[in-house]
């Protein structure tokens, strides 16, 4: 009799030990990786980051290096070589794909593959910085509006509407015209553009965060925090922020893609990252030359494909995260 009881207890213990208990984060990750598209997106982004940030160390060329060629002997000469002033030596523009230049050279005689890496650095960095700026402003203002409500909410939401009604690209056109007036160098222009984009895009984040906080505020656990009388800062950072985190992460991934797309469009229009800096967007600008458009797809196709892949990957990840965080999505 006692024997059976002991065995039963043992069985019970074993059963409990063999149960895998997943934390909410693990659950989300498990659901995320079950989504094939999302996993592919994550791998694509990792590959892109390695390509753009580690790739240049393996490239024999630098970003602005211009190649020359001796038309008679067909020998390639570096920019630093003294022979470039010799007779018959020209800039090696629009060179075809070869082992020395895996994607050829562009209209200025620079290696396309190397510029692709540096361009990617700029595009990815711009995306990251802009998202950080917009989150900083958006989460703070959206949180304040949602938490305090009333007049504060009213003012912040009107501000959100104002920023919402300004068409982004046309506004960038004006800002660019003003920057031209000051003759700002391309080096500083990058920083200004990142800042301006962050400041313009916060409204969407604020709106989402506010909505989330408004509904959270009515929940029982928030009433409990009220009843236990804990500090406001603790209420916000310990109880509200963790609950808003999923939506912030989803917005951030989706926006990363959107901002990279926007930056490339601006660079294409000539109001974004400017020469001599490479960005994927301004590399595609080469298509404005109809000869390049027709005969040299090796110059404009790769950067375009890179933009497409990166933005698509961020969208896949964002979609996957949204499904993974949504407890209603049971499959």
């Amino acid at each position, binding site marked *: 009799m006692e024997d059976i009881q002991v065995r039963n207890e043992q069985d019970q213990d074993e059963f409990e030990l063999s149960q895998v208990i997943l934390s909410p984060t693990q659950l989300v990750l498990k659901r995320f990786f079950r989504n094939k*598209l999302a996993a592919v997106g994550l791998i694509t982004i990792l590959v892109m980051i390695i390509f753009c940030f580690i790739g240049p160390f393996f490239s024999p060329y630098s970003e602005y290096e211009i190649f020359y060629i001796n038309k008679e002997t067909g020998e390639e000469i570096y920019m630093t070589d003294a022979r470039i002033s010799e007779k018959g030596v020209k800039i090696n523009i629009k060179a075809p794909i070869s082992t020395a230049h895996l994607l050829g050279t562009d209209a200025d005689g620079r290696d396309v593959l190397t510029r692709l890496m540096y361009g990617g650095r700029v595009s990815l960095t711009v995306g990251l910085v802009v998202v950080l700026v917009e989150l900083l402003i958006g989460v703070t203002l959206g949180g304040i509006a949602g938490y305090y409500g009333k007049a504060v909410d009213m003012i912040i939401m*009107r*501000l959100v*509407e*104002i920023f*919402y*009604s*300004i*068409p*982004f*690209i*046309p*506004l960038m*056109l*004006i*800002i*660019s*015209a*003003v920057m*031209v*007036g*000051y003759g700002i160098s391309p080096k500083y222009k990058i920083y200004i553009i990142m800042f301006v984009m962050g400041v313009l895009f916060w409204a969407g984040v604020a709106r989402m965060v506010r909505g989330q906080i408004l509904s959270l505020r009515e929940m029982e656990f928030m009433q409990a925090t009220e009843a236990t009388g804990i500090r406001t800062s603790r209420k916000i950072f310990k109880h509200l922020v963790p609950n808003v985190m999923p939506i912030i992460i989803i917005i951030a991934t989706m926006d990363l*893609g959107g901002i990279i*797309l926007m930056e*490339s*469009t601006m660079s*294409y*229009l*000539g*109001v974004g990252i400017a020469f001599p800096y490479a960005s994927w*967007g301004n590399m*595609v600008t080469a*298509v404005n030359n*109809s000869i390049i*458009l*027709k005969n040299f*797809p090796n110059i*404009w196709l790769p950067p*375009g494909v890179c*933009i*497409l892949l990166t*933005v*698509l990957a961020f*969208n*896949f990840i964002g*979609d996957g995260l949204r499904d993974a965080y949504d407890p209603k999505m049971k*499959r």
Partner: protein
Amino acid sequence: MRQYIVRRILISILVLFGVSFLLYIIIRLMPGDYVANITAGNMNVTAEMEQRMREVYGLDKGLLEGYISWLGDAVRLDFGISFIYQKPVTEVIQRYLPITFALAAIAMVFEMLLAIPLGILAARKQYSKMDYSIVAIALMGISLPSFFFAAILKRVFAIGLGVLPLSGMVNARAGFEGFARIMDIGHHLVLPVTVFVITGVGGLLRYTRTNMLEVLNADYVRTARAKGLPERKVIGKHAFRNTLIPIVTLVGGMIPGLFSGAVITEGIFALEGLGQIAINAVNNGDIPYLMGFNMFLAVLTLLGTLVSDILYAVVDPRVRYS
């Protein structure tokens, strides 16, 4: 309802003040000698036009004072004289608006014709191969840079196959009249509209799919199925009508996006619309035009939101604003 509309309009006006003030501040950030500098190379810009711009934008006054004087002119639709066209900005906008508007309207109709049926199809067959491919294609459209897509289309259809014109609005050499002219314009618009539709359809499609999924799980759809209605009727009469409500609100917000998207597409295909002029304006420092264009778009955006909010109440009898 009337009270709601009035309140919405009042708020819109308030927001419009905010937008215009923001834009005005940006203009005022210009360096003092900007007008002289930027117009130095442009023979067409006379001293009078410069003076007129200084006056309209109150550049010689303080910030607040200048804004008020600019606002006074703006209310009377006076945004100064465009440096490129030598005409009042409003006249320029009026002249080139129809092209941009036609392009946007055609694109929007096609977008809806594509997005709504495909979105419903994807939702009906959730998690099937069909669903995955539709969603993947929609996402690809969203992620595709429009200028890059346009370049590929031009390379393939205009240069490679030579079946469609490369750019422009009409075949200037042919000099078509009447119906042939309309056909010619249509021929020229195929590529721009394709760019618009493919890059813009994704958002609406995914939105339709999500809403349809929600509706399909609703009790009244189960009831409809339980009483043995044919699937066609369940989808068409019971489910679809209810997805229409959120879609209507989205469509109202799409219009301004189409207009600002025109900046890129018109530029690439050399269509003489508001967008292309805006790009020329940047290169020529035509601040009066840019300011007018931005204000026009801001008004359009606010109108779009207003109309979609009101439509929301019209299509959904449950919505009552107090």
